[in-house]
């Protein structure tokens, strides 16, 4: 469903993403992990067709995202880490705008909007201007906007940041349900516990390069094989091992002493 071929992005002399090759199947929930500044957001933006790569291609359901952006974008939805929305619009007006853009049937769009607003506990505030909304509420509205037109692929950049535990849990359940219905989800996250519990496969990126790719079990087996420690390693162990963060554990131990 989603494929990147030698995807590269340079910002001047800095290579943010370097020769990234990935393939995500339909109905798969893919977790994209990496430390700050690793190139996660840049990759997602290129996949969503809102940033032109320096080199390489992105294919979405066989469509070259950068050659046929309009066709590709009609199949995808993107939720950024900072869900900045129109402050002078209410959620209902914003969703009506989204429905117009995707040329949805008006009655169906209204029914869907009301349904999702209800689920995300936003019905009572659906007619207030979004200027006064908290980060979490805006995040919910942008998620509803992403779901409204029933995309085949959803790109989520840190989807649970700013959400209360109840909403975060609901989103986790929702994402799993969507995957069961065949929707592909490509999600970046800092919360390793989410990736460990939810994702079918994960990719770990650092300095724009893909360091590891596979299911949690495969990655666990890989580190287990390389390590002399007999206990089963967690995704956090693997992450720190690959991204050079193991030194933080040592610093933490030193501080405790």
């Amino acid at each position, binding site marked *: 469903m989603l494929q990147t071929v030698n995807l590269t992005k*340079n*910002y*001047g002399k800095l290579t943010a993403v370097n020769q990234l090759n990935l393939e995500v199947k339909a109905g798969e929930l893919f977790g994209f992990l990496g430390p700050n500044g690793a190139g996660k957001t840049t990759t997602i*933006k290129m996949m*969503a*067709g*809102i*940033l*032109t790569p*320096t080199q390489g291609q992105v294919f979405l359901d066989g469509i070259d995202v*950068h050659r046929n*952006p*309009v*066709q*590709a*974008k*009609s199949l*995808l*939805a*993107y939720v*950024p880490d*900072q869900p*900045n*929305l*129109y*402050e*002078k*619009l*209410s959620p*209902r*007006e*914003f969703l*009506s*705008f*989204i*429905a*117009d*853009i*995707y*040329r949805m049937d*008006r009655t169906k769009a*209204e029914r869907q909007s009301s349904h999702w607003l209800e689920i995300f506990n936003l019905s009572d505030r*659906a*007619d*207030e*201007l979004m*200027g*006064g909304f908290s980060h979490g509420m805006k995040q919910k509205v942008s998620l509803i*906007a992403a779901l409204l037109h029933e995309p085949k692929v959803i790109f989520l950049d840190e989807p649970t940041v700013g959400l209360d535990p109840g909403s975060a849990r609901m989103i986790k359940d929702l994402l799993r349900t969507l995957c069961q219905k065949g929707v592909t989800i490509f999600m970046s996250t800092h919360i390793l516990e989410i990736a460990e519990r939810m994702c079918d496969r994960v990719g770990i990126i650092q300095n724009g390069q893909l360091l590891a790719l596979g299911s949690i079990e495969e990655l666990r087996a890989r580190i287990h094989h390389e390590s002399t420690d007999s206990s089963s390693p967690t995704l956090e162990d693997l992450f720190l091992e690959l991204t050079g963060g193991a030194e933080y554990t040592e610093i933490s131990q030193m501080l405790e002493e």
Partner: protein
Amino acid sequence: MREAALILKYDLLAMRNSLIKGGLKKALPGSIGILVTLMLAFFIGSGGYNMTRLTRTISAGNPDLMYATEFNLMAGTSLAIFVLLLLAGFRVIYQNFYESEDLFFLLATPLSTKSIFGVKFLHSFNQNLLLLLPFTGAFWVGYGLGVEAPPVYYFIAFFTLLLANAIFTALASLLLLLISSLISSQKMKQFLTVGSMLLILIMVLGSQYYSSLTMRMRVEPDSLLEVVAGWNIGASLFPHIWISKSLLLTIHGFAFSFVESLLPLILLTLIMILATLSLARRSFISGWSFSHDYAPARHSNRKRNRGIKLFGGLGGIVKKDLLTFKRLPLVWYNLLVILIIMGFMGFNLASNTGGSANFTRGLLLFMLLFITAQMGSNLSAYVLSMEGSSWWVIQQSPLQPAALYRAKLLSASIPSLLNSGAVLLVLYLIPGVPMHPWYFTIPVLMLSISLFSSLCLLLDIYGPNFEIGLPQGGSSRSHRSARSSKTLGAMFLLTITAGLIFALISFSSYAKFLPVFSTLSPSFQYSIGIALFLLVVTGGDYICYRTGKKQLANLLTGKNDD
């Protein structure tokens, strides 16, 4: 003091970095803004000089009248300082005190509130001074040159301007400190917006009423001077009188003393600053915290929105943009002011039957074009930037660049069409206003608006600033500077275009002076003008569409985000 100097040092460092590292592309709009401001200062300064010379020539035989007139003029310009600052200075101070992004950081550090407030006060003071210099400052320089004032006059004038600015900034700060601890940020913003708009409206109404009175008077220089001298603005003891007396301290013929001019001004400035600092130490943080409380306004438009059905993505964007425009006070304010100005102008022209009707018709059409252009620069120049930080929503949508261009062009045109439509209605409703027939004026205005909107849109497509967003958005120093440059740039471009359109439409009126065209019949000359107008409008629209569409495609795919 050391703490304030420390904050200032880093502020200056940030300013230096933005100047050095911004590059030529970023420096260009700012440079245009400075150039336009300098030109404005020159015009106001030379106006002051000419007015002074005229006064001295007319009243050469009556020195008492001359001094009374000059004193009243200076008192008037001193009052203008406070009016100018009331219009724009309040907002500057508010933004510095309560919307500066660095306050979140600074107030969390162990720096004293007094130092932080002091730096913000200084920033407000500087910005207000920059506002005053091209207006009042330039006029005072013109006056000084007009009366051949000694060099010390210019020093005193600058010092007086500093004192006047400090008094206003301190007084406004005191008021804001008091108000902010009582009402929330949203209400404060509404209060400031409505307050400053109301003030402008009163000024517009007042000036129009005065001009309609003077148009009915027989204007003779002596009687006009007597009217100005009779204003008697200096009858009371107010700071603007101390300012005028300070300015005239060194001018020959005026006998004011230091004790009745500069001294009370200096004392008042010191008292105001000390009072402000004292109040700020106690209430700045609490006021700042309260100003960030948000009181959301409920909108019960659920039922209405359900009924709206528009076609496809294009309609969606236009609908969203119009909803946003509808919620901007600037839009309604623009409409109100323009209706009043054009209404009064039409009324005055209708009641003054003297002069050529053809000339009046042309003048009204030019005014219509000019005002439409000014309105356009206020709103249409932001029609893409208004997406602001939500630009990602448009970027990720399956929109063709051409469709987006058309939608944005429509969004840019509709407010101007509605505004000029309302103005036309008023002008046609006033009996006796010499207007071109509606079947001429309406198409000319519509076509002109299409070109104005295309140019504004193209300008915004090539230089979008999603950080500013809406015409009144963005609170940082760089946002304000970018906003001013953008508006001034658009205003400049559209004013030239309005002039060109008017020149083409009225081609027949001056064609007889042109060698090649003078032999042609009037109807042929008229046809040439109209044909050229149509060519310029359609050609301009087409070029904007072609180039704008291409650049929009780049923006949508983030091709320029390197």
